[in-house]
């Protein structure tokens, strides 16, 4: 089905956060810390205040009133301590964007600078075991005897993979337009993945009841996790509007996104695998070192996919975190699974080579009956079917594993495979369905960040109601609608859709109106391991004179429950794989060890794939009938596409060249080293 909002998007009529016309709008521009650690000794705003158009300057010289328990990232201007370079320490509000930005440079901040520590290393003395990793998993798990499993193995792999810091870089930079009414109610037009969540967070930070705050987000220019929860820019607009007594717009620059909107933590991952003579795993040990800021504990769940993937008598997973003088990391598409599966699936490729076994076969051989850690049964698991179907379509059979021997002109050719997985969860949601003007209006505070939520929910409602989609109008993107969880964790459609189905069923019974809340239904569901799976195949060519890598073909086969809309689903899978290609070959944010912060912070220096990088990507799926998920039988598809792509490409680069690059991204510099 074509996207419902397609016409609005191709004509420029779709309205994003910074674009709502508001009378008397003013502009706030942040001043950012120029040290990585220390204390602000003074902030002199006199020069800025004297500049044309300037209305006010916010800073910790006069801390705005907030709830005492405000989150340290969101509680702007409350503290004099600087936790990372780029942290927002002041802001100027002015009549135009140009005046605000010019005046921001005139704010004089002086610091007492302390030595900083911004480098993640596997032997960092500050590494510790967090209480849990995101969102609620144990930091460590252990079953069986890993040492014994490795000692008894006929083949072992002991390798360390690293992934760099990566930035989501949605095309729309974070933007917020905040409008206070005369009686103290707040309306926030925000680029966010969750209007209910944003409303609750804003209200909590301000110490206001949630009903005094309304968040509107009809269209959002991508997020990939970066807009999952509100970021400091949102609060800046809210506080600046309160201080200035005028509506305030904050549109962060691309450079500022790198500092204050989160990123994927760099990881250092040690994988130890053991296999017997037949290739059956005897032990898996996955240990991860990663970072968070001194402000918050954000513990990426990097080793968790090893708990799901392969049958092994001995399995250990462990996360270690160090708090550095760095910006707070956050969610980026498939947090945990994405970097973790890169390392695990690369190590599996190395194990296949060590055993002398085809890497598809190795994975099929080690497919588990129940979840390897914990032993829960799967609601459905079709990894093997994906691997076999992918191998068939890709022409994998008869592949010569010898590396570095296939040449076409200046290119060496290679192929690689990796598995994908992502949890299939859902959160409680509300929704209503109402008969209006001869059709139905479905209301749910969901957000469509490009996933196609508006279209998918329309189809879900129409199917439930037994009417054509044209007779259903879905209203979303407004926190005044029935409360709903954010679009994240590949849970959006499953969560909102469950409530929409229930509301529509009730409306059918009632004849006029139905309202649903899925909280109890979700609490009551069976304790099963719910995951989607997939297999990705890559064909690459490498020029060993220059180190250039081109991906000639990517194929992904997924098992993700029932696919609600084929056209939208394909776009989601292909989009995830495209981002995975970026991760494999070009994406990296470089920590500036001397000054703190990141040295590359724009789209000329942080490379994401361009059109010319994407030659051929095919995505397909196998039919999966899983009755243990939700009324739609659907698993989320927003994230699994990126999981495994980088490993498939890295494995193909090895097959092409015989060079195993264990540090992403695989750049010419690394191949020529």
């Amino acid at each position, binding site marked *: 089905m074509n996207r419902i909002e397609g016409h609005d998007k191709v004509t420029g009529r779709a309205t994003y956060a910074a674009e709502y016309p508001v009378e008397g709008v003013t502009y706030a521009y942040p001043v950012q810390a120029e040290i990585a650690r220390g204390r602000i000794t003074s902030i002199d705003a006199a020069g800025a205040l004297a500049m044309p158009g300037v209305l006010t300057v916010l800073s910790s010289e006069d801390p705005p009133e907030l709830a005492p328990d405000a989150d340290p990232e969101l509680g702007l201007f409350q503290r004099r301590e600087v936790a990372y370079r780029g942290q927002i320490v002041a802001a100027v509000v002015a009549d135009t964007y140009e005046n605000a930005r*010019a005046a921001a440079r005139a704010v004089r901040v002086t610091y007492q600078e302390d030595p900083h520590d911004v480098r993640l290393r596997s032997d960092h003395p500050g590494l510790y075991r967090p209480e849990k990793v995101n969102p609620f998993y144990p930091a460590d798990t252990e079953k069986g005897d890993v040492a014994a499993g490795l000692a008894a193995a006929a083949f072992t792999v002991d390798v360390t993979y690293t992934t760099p810091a990566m930035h989501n870089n949605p095309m729309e930079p974070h933007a917020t337009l905040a409008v206070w009414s005369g009686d103290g109610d707040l309306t926030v037009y925000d680029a966010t993945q969750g209007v209910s969540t944003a409303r609750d967070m804003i209200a909590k930070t301000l110490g206001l009841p949630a009903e005094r705050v309304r968040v509107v987000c009809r269209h959002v220019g991508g997020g990939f996790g970066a807009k999952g929860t509100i970021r400091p820019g949102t609060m800046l607009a809210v506080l600046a509007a309160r201080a200035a007594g005028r509506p305030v717009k904050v549109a962060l620059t691309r450079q500022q996104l790198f500092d204050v909107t989160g990123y994927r933590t760099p990881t250092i991952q040690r994988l130890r695998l053991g296999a017997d003579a037949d290739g059956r795993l005897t032990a898996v040990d996955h240990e991860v070192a990663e970072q968070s800021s001194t402000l918050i504990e954000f513990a990426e769940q990097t080793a968790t996919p090893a708990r799901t993937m392969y049958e092994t008598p001995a399995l250990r997973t462990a996360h270690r975190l160090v708090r550095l003088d760095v910006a707070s990391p956050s969610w980026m598409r498939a947090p945990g699974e994405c970097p973790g599966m890169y390392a695990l699936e690369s190590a599996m490729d190395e194990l296949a080579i060590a055993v002398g076994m085809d890497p598809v076969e190795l994975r099929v051989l080690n497919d588990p009956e129940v979840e390897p850690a914990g032993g829960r049964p799967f609601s459905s698991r079709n990894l093997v079917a994906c691997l076999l179907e992918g191998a068939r379509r890709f022409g994998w059979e008869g592949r010569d594993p010898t590396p570095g021997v296939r040449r076409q002109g200046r290119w060496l050719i290679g192929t690689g495979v990796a598995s994908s997985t992502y949890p299939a969860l859902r959160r409680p949601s509300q929704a209503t369905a109402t008969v209006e003007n001869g059709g139905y209006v479905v209301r749910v505070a969901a957000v469509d960040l490009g996933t196609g939520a508006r279209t998918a929910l329309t189809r879900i409602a129409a199917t439930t109601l037994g009417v054509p989609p044209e007779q259903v109008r879905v209203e979303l993107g407004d926190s005044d609608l029935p409360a709903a969880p954010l679009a994240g964790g590949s849970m959006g459609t499953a969560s909102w859709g469950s409530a929409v189905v229930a509301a529509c069923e009730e409306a059918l019974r009632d004849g006029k109106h139905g309202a649903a809340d899925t909280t109890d239904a979700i609490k009551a569901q069976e304790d099963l391991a719910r995951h989607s799976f997939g297999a990705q195949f890559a064909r690459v060519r490498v020029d060993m004179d220059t180190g250039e890598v081109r991906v000639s073909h990517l194929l992904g086969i997924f098992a993700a429950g029932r696919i609600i809309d084929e056209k939208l689903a394909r776009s989601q899978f292909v989009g995830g794989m495209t981002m995975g290609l970026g991760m494999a070959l070009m994406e990296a944010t470089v920590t500036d060890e001397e000054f703190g912060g990141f040295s590359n912070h724009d789209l000329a220096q942080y490379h994401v794939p361009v059109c010319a990088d994407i030659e051929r990507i095919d995505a397909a799926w196998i039919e999966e009938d899983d009755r243990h998920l939700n009324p739609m039988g659907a698993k989320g598809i927003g994230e699994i596409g990126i999981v495994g792509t980088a490993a498939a490409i890295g494995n193909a680069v090895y097959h092409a060249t015989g060079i195993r690059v264990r540090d992403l991204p695989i750049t010419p510099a690394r191949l020529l080293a």
Partner: protein
Amino acid sequence: MRSFEYARAADPADAVARFRPGTMYLGGGTNLVDLMRLGVAEPEYLVDVSRLPLDRVEPDGEGLRVGAAVRNSDLGAHPLVRERYPMLARAVLSGASGQIRNMATVGGNLLQRTRCPYFQDVSKPCNKRLPGSGCPAIDGDHSNLAVLGHSTACVATHPSDMAVALAALDARVHVTGPGGDRVIPMPGLHRLPGDEPGRDTVLEPGELVTAVLLPAPPPGASRYRKVRERASFAFALVSIAAVLDVAGDGTVRECRIALGGVAHAPWRCERAEQALRGARAGEESFGRAADAELAQARPLPRNAHKVPLARNLIVRTLLELAP
């Protein structure tokens, strides 16, 4: 961005007459506006030269005269450039994006500034931006900075593709200024940083590029090749413009080699050219020539890959050009 005055110049003489300290000439703006927004460039007076009547590509004797205001896309698409200087056309088309090539002028392309991350970040020191403040790139993020001709003050690279081809073509840059008109040969417009990295070129204050003259195309086969981290729309890690003319007996009659992405200026490989003239064309002599050139390379800890990359590019490109 600091406030400034803006005026559109009527002709080159008018532009020069308007020049005073704090003035910058505005061409397509694709780098200057970018730098103004970052606070790196803070002109008080912008004199717009983008619409000067310097927008023609026309034959000039055996060569071609390219006006300074010619848009990059028009240069790359010009039939005479494509036919007679395909290396230049390919270099221009390899730069930036279709949109930027539509805006960027030939003069502006020559005078664009380094994309060194420290130069572009006004919160950090940089000798090029703030003389005497230091060069953090030397111990920091220099993975795409210079391996040749850099100094202890600056390791920046010049980012242009077009200039690399012009350096190989022995182009001449015509300028006008308060002191009159003059002609500057390529290479020769761009400087090495030495202890004065703030100066990218030999231009004097107020001088305005009016045209680039291309001499008759050199005999032989030519090629421009660019290596970057993604397939398009990225600055070069290393690029090469090469011309090779091999005599009937298999010896090199003439050759021109220029590298991009390796130095503060387009790097003309004079030592390699010297080593090749009269030598038998082939992998061995090409390798020796590349080694002769790159013996001067002084890679930094995190850009050592540029040396083998440059060597491979020289050898591979010359092999492709050899009959």
